[in-house]
């Protein structure tokens, strides 16, 4: 067992975890934060996306012990216009990928604003093609992709950055 301390959604949590426990399992099973979802447990679906110090990560591919001293934000700690936009644009159906989509979109917008390039980066404007490319690590089997992109474009358009 290793004792780690993380700031999770603003509050400091200390917990004892075995070194093989993923960050996702630590959040879900030890801290009761079931907002991040387990869809594949191998980094293929993005349902487990959380923000680590503001950067989006697949928490199923992260070991909890690696995140000692870090700041983690799950969907439970998110208060962002994207959430309302997802509802307005019907950016989900079953809701299982939604936490990951929203956390990923927050991280993605920050990445874009910081000038991080993608495979389709052109003018620097956030285009729909950019959003699709940058969000492709988050699967939605219900096929709500149009609504998700609309929600992100809507919020990004209003973003003063």
């Amino acid at each position, binding site marked *: 067992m290793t004792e780690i301390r993380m700031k999770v959604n603003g509050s400091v949590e200390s917990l004892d975890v075995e070194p093989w426990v993923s960050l996702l399992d630590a959040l879900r*099973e030890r801290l009761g934060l079931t907002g991040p*979802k387990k869809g594949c447990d191998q980094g293929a679906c993005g349902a487990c996306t959380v923000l680590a110090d503001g950067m989006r990560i697949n928490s199923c591919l992260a070991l909890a012990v690696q995140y000692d001293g870090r700041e983690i934000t799950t969907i439970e700690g998110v208060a962002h216009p994207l959430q309302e936009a997802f509802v307005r644009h019907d950016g989900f159906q*079953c*809701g*299982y990928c939604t936490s990951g989509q929203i956390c990923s979109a927050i991280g993605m917008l920050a990445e874009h604003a910081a000038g991080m390039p993608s495979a389709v980066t052109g003018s620097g404007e956030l285009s729909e093609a950019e959003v699709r490319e940058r969000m492709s*690590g988050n699967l939605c089997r*219900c*096929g709500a992709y*149009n609504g998700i992109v609309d929600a992100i474009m809507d919020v990004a358009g209003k973003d003063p950055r």
Partner: protein
Amino acid sequence: MSTKYAETEQATAGPKYVGRAVDRLDGRAKTTGEARFAAEHPYPDLAHAALVHATIPRGRITAIDTAEARAVPGVIDVLTHENAPAMKPAPKVSFLDLSTLVSGTSVNYLATDEVHWNGQPVAVVVAETPETARYAASLVRPAYQELPAAVDFAAEEPNAVPQKGSLIAETKADKGDAPAALAAAPYAVDLTFTTPPHSHNAIEPHATTAVWDGDKLTLHEGTQNIPWLRKHLAQRFGVPEKAIRVLSPYVGGGFGGKGSVWAGTLLAVLAARATGRPVRLALTRASVYHTVGGRTPSTQRVALGADADGRLTALIHTSVSRTGRTGGMGEQITAVSRHLYAAPNIHLRQSTVPLDLLANTFMRAPGESIGTFALESAVDELAWELGADPVELRMRNEPERDPVGGQRFAQRMLREAYALGAERFGWRERDPRPGAMRDGRWLVGMGVATAYHPSIRMTASVTLRMAADGTVVVRCGLHEIGVGAATVQAQIAADELGVPLDSVRVEHGDSDLPPGPQAGGSMQTASAAAGVLAACAKLKRTLLGLARRAPDSPLRGRRLEEPEARDGGLYLGGRGQTYAEILAAAGRTHVEAAVKSNTLRFLTRTLRERRKWVKAATGAQFCEVRVDPDTMEVRVSRWLGVFDVGRVINAKTAASQLRGGIVMGIGMALSEQTLIDHRDGRIVNPSLSEYHVPVHADIPRIDVRYLDEPDPTMPLGLIGVGEVGITGAAAAVANAVRHATGKRVLDLPITLDKLL
């Protein structure tokens, strides 16, 4: 509201909520992480389970060594066929008790040493943590005596036998002499198509949390069929149905994969009983592949004959699909060919071959999704043969009545769908020559195909309760798998009772509620709507009864038909009373109305109706692709679907469901296949990294339009929208690829190796 939605809204002037693009009522819960799914219910003392899967396709377990697994600290028990408590066998399938259809396979897990497919669970490890359970599962060592197994669909196809039909599912049809007409036709195509197995891949893997309290069982489970699941568990575990409570408020996607009872559910309940602990069995993605059936592969022949005017003279459609030796069903692959074209000579046959593989199961539009791929590809090829426009060819053969049965169509606006679609999509700008259209270096192709899915409905029990303040609770065991079930029924109830939407609450997803319809076959919304409408009428009668007896009521002495439900009360002209006033005057704290479903009577009526009407959702799918001329990579660049789905209750959720079907259809067209090792029957890509579902970058803007004409034979005129979206989609892509490249791909998925 964004302009994008305003375009598809097409709201009607009459009802206040029905037809509108209303936001989902569970939107907040699902965007804040509040919505809890089956694996997310904490229990003190919760234990975690993991499965051990057989690694041979067929045989017997000769020994199973669990010592190493048991020695892992934190392991509570390892259950195998040698020590697990026995479950009762799955009941035999009977149409007198439809719940018998819910069993995924007939295998009595951990009560037999027999192995029936590569991946069958042969042991369950229960441990204090999920990590320990998974690790220990890897240490369980079964030894097998292998038996010969038939697992290669292509090799076993010749052994297929005619598929059995039933009262509601015909498996063959003959009209005229199709082979002779085909031989005599001046224009003909005769093509053989193949489609691979598919997996649902709901993003929520199947999970069960099972808690026994004496002989009482509480089950958290994502299911598309609460009542049948409960009944099945009662039979398998020998307890009364009333002793079981199934809680399934949110289901993280189903697509048919959560419509049956599979090994994980049974084994979680078994493990909880054996260990005396609450047990959660959250399947790994690979375990889902190995224990939950998927869509059958198929081989289909479609042969079409036509005269010089493009009138079909012959239509032949035959199919071979597979089942598992221990379960599964033949799909209605050729059913679509009964209904789409006015050919005087039609020959349809379906056959199946049982293999030593996991049973197949329903997956979004079973039959129609792969059947429309073959038929609609062949029709397109015939258009090339004739030099005809594919839209015009379809319109020339649009029947007035059902081509096989002769019944009338309850609803059929394919002509209007194609006319509207062709105009909106810019079909006339299409240069019909293959490879003639370019965008820079990209080859551009445009294709169309018809979407078709039968419209069926079952019954639902519904209870309504109105409180003294006029707020309403609708109680019905609906399944919220992402369709907006609660939202849509709340809209209907609010309109029927004339109350604001936010004063209606829908309780769903709980076996303690009146049983709802299953979420399958695109039937949940219409089935529940009929129940809600009946319950609202009953509630209004009760309320009017109270008002008529009240001495001072302006409604005193009125007949039920007279008053209008609006503004939170019953009114006649300007005179009336609010519900709150009616209840207060009667001294009541609440009123209730209950409607109970009568399945047998309903089924009898449905069968009678089938002789009179053919009922279906239809649509016209328009697809544009860009194909890289060097790599032959195919990208879908534009999509329009125009659908005839009766009256649309919620323009937002209906559009999402139709788009979702199209997205899955694009996956089916270009990337999806479950690969099975033909030597040993093992699924070799049981993961989301190797089974390629469409991602954001694969999906363009999908324009969805409705004709919004009510089907007069359906409650509120609505037709279910869950499945029609996927039908025709793969063919529309294949036809667009044919236009762009000149190449007809007969074998799904259309990967670039097939175009190079």
